[in-house]
Structures are given as structure tokens and as C-alpha cells.
């Protein structure tokens, strides 16, 4: 079954990392991604650009509303995601807890609905 692994964290924290700290973080993520691939569970994923680059679209009563920023102001921001395919939630949680972002942030694990 496929799960999306949503990486939430403090964007302020990420952007205030020093250069060596940031490089360290990326190295950890690269290693993590490699482990996912090696285990044969990786189906996709990417870091996202910061929420300052986000735009939110709503269509209400046929009218398009476009606003600057993410859909809501939240304490932690979505910074990236992975798509993994594993047998059950326990396995998904295992992988999620190994994600570098789990240490300081919150990792949401949600199953994908079957395709229509």
C-alpha cells in the first residue's frame, strides 16, 4: 500500500541553519533517500521550496481567488514529502521515524486512497 510521508517543521529553523549545518542536513536526507530506494519502497518525493513561494487558489461561486502564501498559517510548515510503498502502517511509521525531519518536526503518515 502507498503512503505519503509529509515532513512538517519550523521553516524559520531551516532557513536559519548555518551553511555547514544545512549541508549536514542535506547529506542526511540523501542517505535516507538512498535507504528507501535500496529497500525498494521509494515511489517518489521531493523537498519543497519555502512557503513564501506558495500560492493558494480557491474557486468560489465560479470566481477564482488567488492568495499569496500557503493555505493556512501553521506553527510548522510543510517542507517536503516522500511517497513510499510498504505492506502496512507499522512499516510506514518505521520509515517515517527514520526521516531526519522527525527529530525536530512532525511527520504525518497518510495512506493514499485507491485510484478511481
Amino acid at each position, binding site marked *: 500500500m502507498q503512503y505519503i510521508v509529509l515532513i512538517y517543521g519550523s521553516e524559520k529553523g531551516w532557513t536559519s541553519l548555518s551553511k555547514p549545518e544545512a549541508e549536514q542536513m542535506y547529506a542526511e536526507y540523501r542517505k535516507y533517500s538512498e535507504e528507501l530506494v535500496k529497500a525498494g519502497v521509494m515511489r517518489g518525493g521531493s523537498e519543497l521550496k519555502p512557503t513564501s513561494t506558495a500560492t493558494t487558489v480557491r474557486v468560489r461561486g465560479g470566481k477564482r481567488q488567488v492568495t499569496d502564501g500557503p493555505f493556512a498559517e501553521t506553527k510548522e510548515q510543510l517542507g517536503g514529502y516522500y511517497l513510499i510503498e510498504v505492506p502496512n*502502517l*507499522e512499516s510506514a*511509521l518505521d520509515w517515517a521515524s527514520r526521516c531526519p525531519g522527525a527529530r525536530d518536526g512532525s511527520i504525518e503518515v497518510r*495512506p493514499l486512497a485507491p485510484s478511481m
Partner: protein
Amino acid sequence: MLARAIDQLVRREGPRVLAGLIRWSGDFDLAEEAFQAACTQALEAWTQRGLPRRPGAWLTTVARRRAVDLMRRRRPDVPLEPELLEALAADEAESDSVPEVADDRLRLLFTVCHPALAPAAQIGLALRTLCGLTTAEIARAYLEPEPTTAQRLVRAKRKIAEARIPYEVPPADRLTERLEGVLSTIYLVFNEGFSATEGESWIRADLCAEAIRLGRLVVELLPGEPEAEGLLALMLLHDARRPARTAPDGTVVPLEEQDRTVWDHALIDEGTAVLDRAVARGNPGPYQVQAAIAALHGRAAHPGETDWPQIAALYGALLRTTPGPIVELNAAAAVAMAHGPAAGLAWMERLEQSGALEGYHLLPAAQADLLRRLGRTDEARLAYQRALALVRHPAERRLLERRLAELG
């Protein structure tokens, strides 16, 4: 009479049968629905034709048939797996035995107590699947409308299916961590029942019995786990004192005033024995410490015989493993008993100043108690009044009011 016997039989055989059904079908929700249908059928059939020789096997066979029916109805276009039908046919032939894979109930326990489910959902499912309580009984026990409880159970089963919470006992390296969650859920059930007072529905007090049943199940299925034994011991020792805990008018009777002759000494003996076993494993933990404290109380024939210095020392140990303001308050009260009210009061002062127990009536109540013992009546009066401003439960209010009146 017969209906009650059938009910008890179903409750006894139920968890094993249900757990086996879940393993057999691989579908929690389906298994539960089929099981419920079999139970309904059992009530009717056994009333008319008498009890079967092997009730568990009877329930399993009927439930499996129902499950196959349900599967056909849900997905009429999908042909049933041949292995499933074969297994069904084979089991009908040997309907005399109920093969229980040793881990079935353990799997069920760990599945319903998975941290991916909200605590209230864990409790509901545990009571339902492992204790055989009906939705109505669970609702009454938790003083909520039945549809609320029913909704919660439906959502929990849906989460198990949709998110695919696996039906398994956690691997060895995860077991202790997950066991913590299971024990915590069981203890929540116990405390809910323990706080029930005279006059409230009997089913609430029965939650203690259900929690103890779950505790025994864990100890039986997972031998050698000292904290599981510690929790069972703790529950047994607390339950032993329950008969003395409330006065006829429903007022809470504090420990030092309880009629110790009505304590269930068989439970105290059993609890102490379980605790001794746990401690012998040499792996201490918070439940064992709390049980040890309860055992020391249980051992004292009168309040004057209580080994307070030992209790105070145990609270010290508890604070090291599970620090927190409420544990500190209990520790301070024990220190007061062991070394005099002044020592306890000083600690409680510090707690009050820290603000950690803001709004908690038991802090001023404890302070009032110590001030009363020291003869500082005016201050005691003020403290009881502070406590009365915060207390919510009527039974506890009456105790405080009585204490205040006694000051004169």
C-alpha cells in the same frame, strides 16, 4: 438465568473466537460484524436447544459462515479465494476444535491498543473486543450517549482498515515500548472505574474488573514482563480497598479512616504475590513502585502500622522514573507522615509557588490536612476553603466540607 449463563459464556469464549476470526479473514471489521451476528444467533439457538458442547467452536463456525456471506454480499463480482472456501469446508468438518494460535488474543490486544488510535478509541475497542462489553455498556460506563461511543468504535475500526494497522504482535525490539501503551490504556480503564462512587451505575465499578481482566490477559500471554505484573498487582491492591472507599451516603472515605476489615484481603495477598514475582525479575519500573506503595498500605492492619518511611522512599524512586507535580504532592504527603507535617508542608509550599498544580484541589486539601495536624487552625480553614473553591466531584466536596466543619 439461562440468558445470563449464555452471556457469560460468550464473554469468556468471545475474545479467543474473535481474535481467531480476524486472523482467518484478515479483516478486522468483517470479523467483528460476523462475530456479533454469531453471538446474536447463539443467544437464540442456545436458549432453544441448550448449550453446545464446544461453544467456542460453535461460534467460530457460525461466524465464518456469516463472514463468507458478508464477503459475497460486499463484492458480489469478486469470486472468493479458493483457499478461504477450502478452509471453511475443512473447519466445518472438524467443528469440534477451535485452533487457537497462541498469539491471537495478544495480536488483538496490541492492535486495538495501537498508538495510531486515539486513547478513547483504544479503550473502546479493548472493552468491546477483549472484554465483550456491548456498545451500550461502554457508553454507560463512560457516561456518554450511545451514538457517540458507537461512532467512535466505527471510526476506529475504519482507521485500522484504511491505514492498515497490522494485526500483529510487535517485534521484540518494539515490544517494550508498545507494551507501555497497552498498560497505560488498561490503567486508564481501571482509574475510570475506580473513581466511580456509590450510586453511580454499577457498570462503572465493573470497569475495574474489566481492567483487571485485561491485566491478567497481558500477564498470561506475555509472561516475564515485570511492568505488566506491576500493573496487575497495583490494580489488585487498589481494588482490594474499594469496598471501604465510600460511605453509604457516597462520601469519599480517606485511607486513614477506612474500615480495613472490609478490605478484600485475598486480593491484597494475590496482589502482593504478583508484585513479589515482578520485583524478583530485577527490572524495576513505575507500576512496580506504585504497587509496592499500595502493598505497604495493604499490609497495615491499622493506619498507625503503616511503614511511612518506606513509602516515602518509594515515592523518591517513583519521582526518579516518572517526575511530575502530582507524584511530588503524594511524595510530600508521605514525607509528612514519615518525618512530620512541617517537612511535608515546606515541599507543598514550593509546589504551590511553582504554579504547577494551579486549579488542583488536592494541593490545598493536603496543605489543610497538615496545618490541621499542626494545630494551625485558622490557616487550615483557609486552605480547606481554597480546596472547596476548586473541587468538582460532589463526593469529595462532602469530605472537605466535613473536615472544615470539624475545625469548629
